[in-house]
């Protein structure tokens, strides 16, 4: 097939670009601590000691750190060592909780973040898209315009601000929903236990609400404007002339054509969503990466912070890359030319 050659080249190009970008991001992650004078880990431990923390095995910590992320050897050597460790999945040890590994800490928190993020993003995208579709289709109605104003305001409110408001409402005024944690501690993480699952969902209501309500605005506005633009297109007029039912036209013509840009929008917003989710977790003490990040900042647990930023960079980059690859496969109009 003549086409195959072009497709092949596109994928290869994209993969190479992805690796280059990831490499650079890891490099930045690697370089930053080395920009400060002195041995960062000694500084940090020194500071913690001054604050009154107690450490055993200080020498062991420093030594392990230097060995793995060592400041021994030339810079390229250090970077290669850093990379190898990362590929082995070794992100070092937590300073605060030595000898607990960073990867273990992250591994414990990541599932909660994915759960919260995934749930909230899916719900808000679906709800926002459907309401936005209807609002765009009936864009003359006052309801549609009213929704737009509301969405405009919601759009700019950061997730955590709404979180604070929700806390006030549901802590002080109407104490219904739980305010902290992912599930009732006494239950333990047992997936077979229906009580656990119920508790999990119950505890996720407030945090996910903060994310859902505020991000709804964005999905709503983007598809609404897509549909409003689409309504004036010739093929919509012809579909009316064909005697097709209005609902059918809305779904099959308007929706189908705005779906793809809406999905791309999802891909592009991933970074921003992650940022917002982190802060929300912090406020609700939801045991995900956000809370871990916050705690490590307060305790200056440097290695954990580094590990988290790395993980986030890699996952967001990877997810964007996947969607980049998939998009041409879904949209029949895209050829494999570089835009």
């Amino acid at each position, binding site marked *: 097939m003549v086409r195959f050659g072009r497709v092949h080249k596109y994928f290869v190009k994209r993969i190479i670009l992805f690796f280059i970008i990831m490499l650079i991001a890891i490099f930045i992650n690697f370089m930053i601590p080395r920009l400060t004078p002195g041995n960062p880990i000694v500084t940090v431990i020194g500071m913690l000691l001054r604050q009154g923390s107690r450490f055993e095995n200080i020498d062991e910590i420093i030594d392990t750190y230097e060995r793995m992320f060592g400041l021994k050897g030339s810079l390229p050597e250090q970077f290669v060592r850093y990379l190898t460790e990362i590929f082995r999945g070794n992100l070092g040890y937590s300073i605060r909780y030595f000898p607990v590994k960073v990867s273990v800490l992250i591994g414990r928190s990541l599932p909660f973040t994915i759960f919260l993020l995934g749930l909230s993003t899916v719900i808000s995208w679906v709800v926002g898209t459907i309401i936005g579709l209807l609002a765009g289709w009936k864009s003359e109605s006052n309801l549609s315009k009213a929704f737009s104003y509301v969405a405009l305001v919601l759009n700019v409110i950061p997730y955590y601000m709404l979180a604070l408001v929700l806390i006030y409402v549901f802590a002080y005024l109407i104490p219904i929903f739980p305010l902290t944690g992912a599930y009732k501690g006494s239950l333990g993480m047992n997936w077979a236990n229906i009580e656990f699952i119920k508790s999990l969902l119950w505890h996720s209501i407030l945090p996910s609400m903060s994310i859902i309500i505020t991000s709804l605005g964005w999905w709503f506005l983007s598809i609404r404007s897509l549909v409003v633009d689409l309504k004036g297109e*010739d*093929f919509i007029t*012809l579909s009316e*002339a064909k*005697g097709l*039912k209005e609902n059918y036209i809305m779904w099959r013509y308007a929706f189908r054509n705005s779906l793809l840009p809406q999905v791309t929008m999802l891909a592009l917003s991933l970074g921003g969503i992650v940022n917002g989710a982190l802060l929300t977790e912090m406020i609700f003490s939801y045991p995900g990466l956000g809370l871990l990040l916050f705690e490590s900042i307060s305790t200056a647990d440097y290695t954990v912070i580094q590990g988290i930023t790395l993980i986030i960079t890699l996952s967001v980059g990877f997810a964007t890359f996947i969607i980049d690859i998939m998009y041409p496969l879904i*949209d*029949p*109009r895209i050829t494999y030319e570089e835009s």
Partner: protein
Amino acid sequence: MEEAQRILDVNGLTTHYITKKAPVKAVENVSFEIGSNEIFGIVGESGCGKSTLAASLLRLLKPPGKIISGEVFFDGVDLLKLPSKDLRRLRWNRLSYIPQGAMNSLNPVMKVGKQIEEVIKIHKGKIPKREMKKRIEELLKSVGLDPVVANSYPHELSGGMKQRTIIAMATALSPRLIIADEPATALDVVVQRGILQLLLHVKEQMNSSIILITHDMAAQAEVCDRLAVMYAGDIVEIGDIRRLLGDPQHPYSQALISSIPSLTEEKHLKGLPGFPPDLRFPPSGCKFHPRCSRFMPGLCDKVPPLTLEVKGREVECHLYK
């Protein structure tokens, strides 16, 4: 025309575009009839109201356009007063549309065959898959396309192919009347001819009538039976095409026809002085009077002319009182 022969009867159709200042009087009091099995041409300069007329007939007018008054009788039913549910059932089934610029008229994310299929399904109900496939194949063949086209997406087809597909869609349900708005204008000359021949074929094979709207008189000379000349929202002359082209009565028709270059004789080309009027503030009396070579002061600028029958044609001009 006899009552039984008529399939479309337009009476006093008036359409305006409502703007913040004065309304644009795009179509003013237009009346004409279409018989069965004929190709009826509407010709005029850009901006004379042809497309607005087509949109009004089909009730596809978009705001700020509004049909102010008139009646459009299609097989005895006034289209303008039809409730939307009945209109929908009638659409495409009995009255279909070939739009200008097929480039954008097909749904980009749907295969072309599917788009033909949905029209058939909506109006004729469920048909077994094999039969549907055969139907679509035949339709595509009838417009000169290879049936594999059915599996393509619109962007994979050329302009001419897209237009032919739309014609295939338009004829799928053997409608009584097809309104073709500049069906070949955006395409190159060779393809144009093919499209026109196709329309002729459709009229003959399916016994449909076609309204062919275009500014290209040569095209109409080729395929139309009757012709209406439109100027500034008004129809100024209607009649049999041979006779009209050979011996135009209205000064505007005369000017139009004399501006067509001839391959056979050496002709002195005469343009028409002036510009088409601003339809927000159309000229008083006869709208053509500022540009008319036979202008009669005191009459043409004061009183709008009546439609009179001259030499078997309907002409709207003071000359023939």
